[in-house]
């Protein structure tokens, strides 16, 4: 099994070739990432037909903007995941039924077992992010996780958590502010730019 670093540089190379119109290379990008990205979307939109649409639109967008990846500072999979997450959030309009919330994921935003860190450098970053998430109080961490993994809006969160809307908004806002402060404290060691 290739290392995750090698996988990321292979993806970056395939994206560069896609930018030049190489459809075979793009097919390999799809083959390597489709199941993770489909899962990311499915968690947010929750309906398979909608997640299929999101995946389709996202990959057309990735094809059209493959040249832009060269300027992105993030790993190729992060760049593509952001595109899929944004597209998923864009198609969410109506309030949804309470369903299928994966409590094990949301209970612990800092789950280390699901996927190992990619490289030494990312391990440092992930470590500091993990520490910072650990500093948040439980309601803030839970609210942020539910929104992040399941695409819950402020009002859906309020319903799910049975807390007033204003309280939920405050938890998220304060939590993210603390997260930023914590990450910036760690910036001296972990090359985090502002």
């Amino acid at each position, binding site marked *: 099994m290739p290392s995750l670093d090698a996988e990321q540089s292979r993806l970056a190379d395939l994206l560069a070739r896609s930018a030049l*119109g190489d*459809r075979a290379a793009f*097919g390999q990008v*799809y083959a390597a990432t*489709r*199941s*993770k990205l*489909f*899962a*990311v979307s*499915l*968690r*947010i939109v929750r309906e398979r037909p909608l*997640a*299929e649409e999101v*995946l*389709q*639109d996202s*990959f*057309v967008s990735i*094809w*059209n*903007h493959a040249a832009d990846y060269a300027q*992105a*500072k*993030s790993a190729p*999979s*992060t760049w593509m*995941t*952001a595109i899929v*997450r944004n*597209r998923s*959030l*864009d198609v*969410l309009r109506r309030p949804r039924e309470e369903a299928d919330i994966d409590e094990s*994921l949301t209970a612990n935003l800092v*789950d280390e077992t*699901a*996927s190992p860190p*990619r490289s030494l450098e*990312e391990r440092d*970053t*992930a470590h500091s*992010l993990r520490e910072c998430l650990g500093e948040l109080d439980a309601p803030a961490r839970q609210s*942020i996780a539910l*929104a*992040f*993994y399941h*695409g819950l*809006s*402020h009002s859906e*969160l309020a319903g799910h958590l049975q807390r007033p809307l204003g309280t939920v908004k405050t938890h*998220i*806002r304060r939590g*993210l*502010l603390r997260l*930023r402060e914590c990450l910036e404290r760690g910036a001296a060691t972990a090359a*985090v*730019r*502002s």
Partner: protein
Amino acid sequence: MRLARDTLHALAAEYVVGTLRGRARRRLEAMARADRDVAAIVERWEAELTPLAERVSPVEPPARVWGAIEARIAAPRSAAGSSADAFWRTFGMLAAGLASVLVVAFLWLSPQREAEPVFVAVLTASDAVPRMVVSMHAGNEMRIRVVKPWQGTEGKSLELWALAKNGAPRSLGLVGNEHDTLLRVSASDARLLAANALAVSLEPRGGSPSGQPTGPVLCSGSIAATRKT
């Protein structure tokens, strides 16, 4: 007009987490397109948080998804023609691309209400890069800011068009390629009241001889109201 850095961080973080929705989400995207610093803040939050999203168990999508993607990327990435048909073909293509991308007001929470435009349109090229920002201000003043000029337009003119859902494009005047332009036009002008988007086409020097666009569309974008009028 810039938001305070803390506010930008708060908005960018909620954008990446996903709780920033609807018009507020569109606004932040437009701001990030127009302002490198805003984009950098969003990218930073994405770099921090998005890798967490990859920690989900994979789910295999059905094979038809790739079939549909292949069909959609079979066409060339961009097209430029010289007929009126090409104008509409290009605009249609842009409009489709725009749906997932963009456009709206990038000015908000302004402390100076009177300085706020009546509407804004971010005009992007077929590669989704913003090229011009049009803002309509009170006092019959339309400002066209050049974000990124075109090469090779010497001897030609750029013409701004109001696009209505029904009916032909209507010219609003010529605009500069290297410099910003001020056009005297009222927000309640019939051409604008009927319009839902703006586009810029490349025309012979002095503008289209026919009163309709004859050259390729360089950029286009939807009109977004920034406040109730």
